[in-house]
């Protein structure tokens, strides 16, 4: 049985792992062409924190994020498609523990 997910509602949702530990929020979804279809390959999750460097520029970017702006990630965790359980799209869950995933540095 197939189910539909709305991408624009999925982004920004917090992901927890199989142990209930917080992983971060979904900020990007990667897809690839396979045959006639465009299929999802991985989800990128980042933590929404204030920037490390203190400067007006980063302060402003932080403010933008507070106002709901999307952004590129400094550091993201990659989740292969099969490891994210979307049976409840409002509460995405990892099918494993967060330590079992690899890190992605942009």
């Amino acid at each position, binding site marked *: 049985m197939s189910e539909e997910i709305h991408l*624009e509602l999925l982004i920004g949702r917090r992901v927890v792992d199989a142990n209930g530990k917080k992983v971060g929020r979904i900020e990007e979804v990667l897809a690839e062409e396979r045959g006639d279809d465009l299929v999802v390959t991985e989800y990128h999750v980042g933590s929404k924190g204030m920037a490390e460097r203190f400067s007006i520029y980063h302060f*402003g*970017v932080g*403010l*933008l994020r507070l106002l*709901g*702006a*999307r*952004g*590129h990630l400094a550091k993201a965790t990659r989740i292969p498609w099969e490891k994210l359980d979307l049976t409840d799209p409002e509460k995405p869950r990892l099918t494993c523990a967060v330590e079992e995933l690899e890190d992605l540095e942009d």
Partner: protein
Amino acid sequence: MKNKFVQIALGILTGIGGYLEVGSIATSAEAGASFGYSLIWAIVLGTICLIFLIEMSGRLAATSHHTIADAVRERFGFRFAVIPSSAELIVNLLVLAAEIGGVCLALKLVTGIEVRVWAAPVVLFLWFALWVGTLDVIENSTSILGLVTVAFVVAAVKMHPDYAQVARSIVPSLPHHDPAHYWFTAVSILGATISPYMFVFYSSGAVEERWSVKDLGMNRATAAIGMTFGAVMASAVLVVSAHVFHPLHITVDRYEQIAVVLTPALHKYGLPLFAISLGVCCFGACVEVALATTYGIAQTFGWMWGEDKKPAERTRFSVTYTLIILVAMVVLLTGIDPLKLTVMAMALTALILPLVVFPFVVLLNDETYVHGHRNGPIGNAVVIVTIFLASIIAIVTIPLQIVGD
């Protein structure tokens, strides 16, 4: 594609005619009357920031082929984009009402007929110009007619200003008296100079003309030269006002007072030249503000928006600017004092600058949009510091001004 020199010349003309409008005239005149040459630095700072912003909007268009509003929604999402768009819409409606008021005032100066009577005919003419006219014709005619503002420079020179003192005033200084009014006037000059509608308009034109990377040099030249000419005009208004009103301790409360500012230098030509300058500049600004506001909405929602299309080819766009003009007319018809409306609209513009401009600056540092033509540190620094400073001063002085009135 137009010849490079023609392009730059048009840019200069737009700078002269497009920069000076009711906001710049009113705020510069008030600054000169109340504080002499002291606030020239606000014009200079505002213009430097504006040059960077105009150049940036041209560069964004040329490298990403996106307009500002289009790119802001794409990059930051719709939920965020609504915030600066709404703020701009509200402020632009007030600015448009002020500009329409400026045209009506010019007509009153020439005919004696009251401003409120002129509101509907002017709005009808404006609507008709947008409906039927092409952008080239409108821009070129207002730009060429806008050359009449050279009268301010002529008048300024004839008053034998203290050029050394003028030069010293380019450096910011603290007020000798009435600090709340000084800083409020400074912030209203910044808001009049750094008008978001100008660079929204500029980026839309650049995308419509399909600018590309090879136009970047011309873009820089147009921005720098055009806006500098505009700043010279605004400074001339300030200097003339300083000479005519400041020694007599006249504060400018009504437009009718500003109208005589050219008379001491240019005698019987003073009033008509002022009226024509005001009328032409404000009409040009009406077109730009109305279109820029509509561009912002259309581009955020993804509608057809090209200016050189017939109304039936972009109906949501055409209906939107019709409504915008009507709302602005209603605002004007409430009987609000046009001068107060103008100055407050300029101060509110300064207030929302960070909200509107900062996302734009972020885009200009984003590789996926500008492909190797990112902002330099100086550009970033000047713009960011100016807009945040303007906003902070606005937050402090606007309430004080309202209470003081």
